């Protein structure tokens, strides 16, 4: 059976979709933020793989076709942005300054915490790209000579956390304006956060998508500067 699964072209995709379906069902039933569909489906998939002893490579043999759609799907984030173009023009300065401030303080926080934890240069530059979308983060981590798998891990933790807690953080810190919510989530938790912003509303989703791209660009420049500090 295991051998059959390892060679199967549809096992990984099926497992991911079933796990995601279960995640959605649980979310609908309980509606508590910790039962986030993304978190639940990832946990279920990992548990299933560990329990059956199927290795990641066999799973990814077929699941990689889902990852393959990630690029076109991210490209599509331009559509809601285009639909909200008037709002973007109207609030252009506020959005750009907000993203820049977020990126700067994000890098600063990582710098301060790296000092507190007495991390070396290698660990420090590995974590600098953590708030940006995976594809840019990988490129930046390589550029800074960091450890790419760990960068990806920190990006995933960030995205997952932003997806789960983004809404709560906005409420807790009095971020009420839909444009500001979108900027907050997109700048802090890249595309994974944006999927949540999309659920919150069209404006939030569009502003979040924009922030992912802009914050990505700003972080590349900022991180190269910050990498010389430690």
């Amino acid at each position, binding site marked *: 059976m295991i051998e059959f699964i390892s060679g199967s072209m549809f096992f990984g995709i099926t497992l991911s979709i079933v796990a995601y379906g279960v995640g959605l069902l649980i979310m609908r039933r309980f509606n508590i933020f910790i039962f986030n569909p993304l978190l639940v489906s990832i946990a279920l998939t990992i548990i299933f793989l560990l329990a059956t002893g199927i290795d990641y490579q066999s799973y990814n043999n077929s699941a990689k076709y889902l990852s393959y759609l990630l690029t076109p799907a991210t490209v599509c984030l331009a559509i809601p942005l285009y639909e909200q173009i008037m709002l973007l023009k109207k609030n252009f300065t506020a959005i750009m300054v907000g993203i820049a401030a977020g990126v700067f303080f994000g890098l600063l926080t990582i710098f301060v915490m790296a000092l507190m934890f007495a991390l070396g240069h290698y660990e420090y530059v590995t974590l600098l790209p953590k*708030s940006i979308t995976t594809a840019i983060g990988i490129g930046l981590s390589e550029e800074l000579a960091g450890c790419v798998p760990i960068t990806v891990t920190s990006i995933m933790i960030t995205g997952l956390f932003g997806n789960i807690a983004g809404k709560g953080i906005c409420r807790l810190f009095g971020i009420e304006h839909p444009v500001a919510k979108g900027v907050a989530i997109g700048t802090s938790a890249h595309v994974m956060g944006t999927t949540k912003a999309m659920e919150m509303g069209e404006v939030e989703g569009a502003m979040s998508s924009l922030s992912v791209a802009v914050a990505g660009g700003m972080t590349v420049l900022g991180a190269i500067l910050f990498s010389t500090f430690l």
Partner: protein
Amino acid sequence: MILAVSFVGELLNRLLPLPVPASIYGMIILFVALCCGFIKLSSVKIVGKFLIDILPLLFIPATVGLIEAWDTMQSFIVEIVVISLLSTVVVAVVSGRVTQFIIKKRNCND
């Protein structure tokens, strides 16, 4: 159409020596093309909506891949998690509050 845009994005990603991923090039190209009327909204809207709807699902395989990296990061996993969570909150609060502050200030001036 969307695949074509993704392909052009990929091409730019290979040709230009910048750490900009194909998806971000593609996003910019699609946005500009929609603004110029080069691509009609109606021609991408349905597929686009579908892809955005299933976006969370598309993240599962890559994230599950973390189990592969487990051994390399075990030594400083606590630091990774703490720094990741805390800086995410800082970025969200700063960027959100600053944006909101400027929007409100300008609305008062109007």
